[in-house]
Structures are given as C-alpha cells and as structure tokens.
C-alpha cells in the first residue's frame, strides 16, 4: 500500500490517496475500484468505477506542482509521498514546495530591458526584465515578493536557454 498526500492548488486541505493494489485505491478512506493504463510516461487511461478519463500529467518546473490535464482543462496539485512529507516536516517546509532562488532564461533570446537594480525589493508580479525571443517580447515577472541579490546579465546581451539571469535573496 502506497500513500500520497494531494493538495489542490486552490485549496488548503490535504487529501490522502492510498493505492492498495492495481485495482483498488481510496481517497480520504473512501474506497473505490480503478484501472490504469499508461500510454506513455505522461498520458494514461484512468477508469474509476466505470468513469473514463484519458488524461495527462506533467511536472510544472515553474510551480513545482503537477499539471493534470483532463479534456484540456488543467488542474494543479501538489503531490507528496509519505517519505517526502517526512522530509518536509523535518526541514520545516510546510507547503512542500521549494522556494526558487535563481531565475533562469526560459529560452534563448536577447535581454531588451532590465527594470530592477541589485538590492531592490520587488513585489509579486513586478516585471524584472524583458526578453525578446521568437519575435515577441516576454516579460519575466517576480513570482513572489523578494530582493534582487545579483543581476547576471546586461541589457542587450543575448542569452541561452537556462542561462542564469538573476539570483534572489
């Protein structure tokens, strides 16, 4: 029996999924029958009782959540195993998500502008810099309140994918 702790992005409640076998599972102690066939690493046919879901799951690097795609609607959940929950508890991380301290370039391109200075405190949603790629200007925004520790690039410098742009405090 495997136990997983699931939290919907928009909810504070943690649900408990137990996988008893390849036919039986439970959600918060409510047992049900299921059947699952993986088409590939991300896509599966999942049947619960007789309900059919042809769905895909992918790891969202940005949010550290799982994106569950059912009929092109995306449900975001965090999913932690028992072991991970134990580690979380010991390290005092309650949400289970790592706080990212570096921002990397999502794609190759050119830095068109930088809107912040080192040492500056910025708010969630603030535009940090603008990256031009694929003929579009893409704003790189802060995903949380933070302080800029180090800027690793200059305006008009061209960057590769995954190149380190900024270190946060």
């Amino acid at each position, binding site marked *: 029996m495997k136990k*997983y702790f699931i939290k919907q992005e928009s909810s504070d409640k943690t649900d408990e999924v137990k996988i008893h076998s390849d036919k039986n599972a439970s959600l918060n102690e409510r047992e049900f029958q299921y059947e699952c066939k993986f088409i590939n690493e991300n896509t*599966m046919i999942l049947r619960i009782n007789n309900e059919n879901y042809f769905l895909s799951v992918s790891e969202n690097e*940005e949010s550290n959540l799982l994106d569950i795609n059912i009929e092109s609607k995306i449900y975001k*959940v965090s*999913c932690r195993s028992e072991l991970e929950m134990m580690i979380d508890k010991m390290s005092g991380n309650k949400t289970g998500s790592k706080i990212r301290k570096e921002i990397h370039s999502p794609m190759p391109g050119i830095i068109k502008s930088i809107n912040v200075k080192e040492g500056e405190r910025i708010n969630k949603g603030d535009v940090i810099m603008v990256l031009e790629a694929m003929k579009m200007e893409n704003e790189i925004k802060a995903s949380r309140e933070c302080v800029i520790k180090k800027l690793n690039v200059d305006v008009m410098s061209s960057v590769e994918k995954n190149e380190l742009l900024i270190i946060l405090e």
Partner: protein
Amino acid sequence: MFSKILIANRGEIAVRIITSAKEMGIKTVAVYSDFDRYSLFTKLADECYYIGESPSSKSYLLADKIIEAANKSSAEAIHPGYGFLSERSFFAKMCKESGIKFIGPGHEAIELLGSKIDAKTLALKNKVPVVPGTDGPLQDLKEIKKTAKEIGYPVLIKASAGGGGKGMRVVMDEDGIESSLRATQSEALSSFGDDSVFIEKYIASPRHIEFQILADEYGNVIHLGERECSMQRRHQKIIEETPSVIIDSDLRNKMGESAKRIVKAAGYSNAGTVEFIVDKNRNFYFLEVNTRLQVEHPITEIRTGIDLVREQLKIASGERLSFRQEDIKFSGHTIECRICAEDSENNFMPSTGKISYMNKFLGSGMREDTGVEQGDEISIYYDPMISKLISHGADREIAVSKMKRALKEYRIEGISTNISFLLSLLESEEFKRGEYHTQFIEKEFLNRHLKTTPDGELKTAVSLAAALFKENKKPKIKLNTGVNGHVKSNWVNKRFENYR
C-alpha cells in the same frame, strides 16, 4: 496553368499551398533552412532545395537564394505564403525581372498599399471612410501635439511602416504624448528603418472585421464575405469566425463593395484582404489591405466552398474569375482557433522543445491546417503557431460545440500550449453572445479568476492520477525504509510493464 511552382515559405502555409497545387497536378518545390530539413512541408513537396541557416534572415528572407532555387528547379511561379517576403514589393519585382510569376498582386500595388498613408488617401478618394487622423507622416513633436488636439484624445500613434501590432501606442491625454512618441519612433527606427509616424482617432472597444477579396488580372473583383477577427491578444488574432454576429447582409454588402472599390482603384490582382475596424454603432473605417493570403483564410474557404489557393494559382496563370459576386453562396458558420506553443498560465511565455506526444481526434466538421507532427521540435526561430483548428457547423452553436470537443481531445505533450486558454475563451459569456472586441482579452478576460477546483468524481480522478504518475515515475531503487520492505510488489511491476 503552371506545371511547377516554388513555395517561398515554411510550416502550415507551405503545406497548405502544396495541397492545392498537388490537387491541380502542379509539381511543388520547397525551400528549407537547416531547421526545416525534414519538416512536414519538405516531406510532402516533390522537390526540396536547401537555402540556408535556421534564422529566417539567413534563409526565408533571402530573396536571391529563393530566386536561385526557382531557376534551378525550373519553377514557373513563386507562392510567397504569408509573412517573410510575401508583402515586400522588391521581391515581387525581382521575381518579375527573373521571368518568374509572383503569385500575388503586382509590385506596384504592393508598394502602394504597403504605405499606410497612401492606402488611406486611396480609400478617401474612393469614398471609403477612414479613421480621422493625419494624412501624412509626422516627425515633429509640436505639430503632433497640435494635430492630436484637433482630432481629440484618446489618439493612437502608429509607425508609418509598422504592422501586426508593432509600433502602435494609445495616448490618453497630452501628458502622455511625448514619451509615447519617442518610444514609438525608436522602435520604428530599429524595426523598420523609418521613424515617421501618424496619428489617428482612437476608437474604444472596436471590432476588427476584414473582407476577403479575389481579383483577376482583367479588372474583375469579388468579395467572399467578412471574417470577424476581434478576438486578439497583443494585436495577434487568436480566434476568428464568419459570419460576424454584428454584420447583416446590408452592412456586408456595403463593406464588401467598399473593399472592392479600394482594391480596384489600386490595380490589384490575386487574393487580398481589406481590414476594417467597426465601432459600437456599426460605423466602419478602412484600416489597411493585406496583399497576401491570410492565416485565417480557411474559414472563408469552408463557408464559401472556394479553395483560395486554387483561385490564386488560376489568377496568377492568367485565368479569369470563374464566378461573379452573385454566384457566391455562404453556408453555415465557421470558426478558427490558433493553437500556439505558449504557456497561457505563465504570461503566454513562448514554449520551445520537442513534441513528445501528439494525439488528436478531429471528427466530422473539423479541419486542421498544421505543419508539425509528433516528434517535431518547436524552435525559437519561427512563429509559435502549431496548428489551426477550423470547425464548420450548420449554425454558430454547432460550430462552437464542434470546436470545443476537438480542443478537449487535442493532446500535445512536451511543450505548453494555449489550448486551455482557447477553451475558456469559447466558454466565456461574451464569446457565447458574440459580444467581444479587440481589447476584450487584455482589458477584461485576463483579469478574471478562472482557476478550476475539481470536486466529486473529478477530484478523485485528479488525485489518483497524480499519485499514479508519481508512483510510475519513481526510480526503480529498492528503498530500505525498514517498515515497508516489499516495495517491488507484484502490482507495481505490472504497472511498469504497461508503461511503454
């Protein structure tokens, strides 16, 4: 008719052109960059010529290379598609001088209509209303301020050579004008090498409605009805439909005839699109002429039964239009959605990478125009559009329901897409009622909280899927947890067998 043509483009539009050419028994020549060596359009073409490196400035924009390939392959004509060299009069001229037919209007018409100011003048001369504004390019701040005051705020500053939403700024009052002007000019200079601008009245919440035109080389011009293109983000069309819910046959006739007058006056031939904006009182104003095939041309094809690429080829080879305005019949309702490689949940950041899995189910009433297949790479070099899905139904409701079904069954893995965003747009009350305008997405829709929390059976499915995914991904290492030693139980093995 030509026996062989070259397609100076890539991706879905190259595929689209090859399709009609093949059906007409015309041989097709593709040109490709390093990136596109084995792209779908090269697989479908009869001949393939390499023309350079992946960045379009080193391949698809190299007029010399393309003309060279046309000569080598003995292609009699070049279809430019959209984008790239399609609206560059110098290229049309080069083709002509090389004895190759350019499948599009003459270079004089491209040049005339390519200048926003000349096009506007032409419209006014032909009694087609335009948005009030300056009738010549401006550069001086003082003069610009004076003109803006005369027109009345809010005004729009536009780069004279701009397009596709680039080099355009709304100014709400006199305080904002100087900084906006400087920004527009510097952008225009770097993008188009020309910093002249013009100013016009800003129309709030307008519709973007365009008319498809076909003109032969003997002065016969017809229109094929409108396309409603107001569903835009950052001036990029996302969903298009025809008919528009606000156009009745009276207005269609008036706007269509206006479009024909402009095109006729410009000495235009081949396919073209006349763009208008329409205000809340259904006043229409001429915007510009796109002197090429549009991305959204399929919705017109389906509603009229006319293959526009076939008509382009027939016109370019000197044939007369085989139908008159009164022969054009419209049937049902058609919608197009553009599926793009962008993360709509993360500020529409372009998404690159390999399409690891693609599974779609189109079904009756659906058409797809695409240039990519499972296993293909989405790169930074070109447009992020993956596919155009087009639905056709007896009425708008049926067309929408088909589109929704097809979007729900369209799976792409390995990259992020805007499919969920398209679906929520179709589900919005505004779209349902047909009451939307070019600023709807940015000013209204994006501010809504659309997060969906699953409940009931759906919640069970979501939770179990997450757990099974994690279970399946787990590295096959025997954990020595002590408590639960039999990690590799029988059923786990079974599941691993299923996967692949």
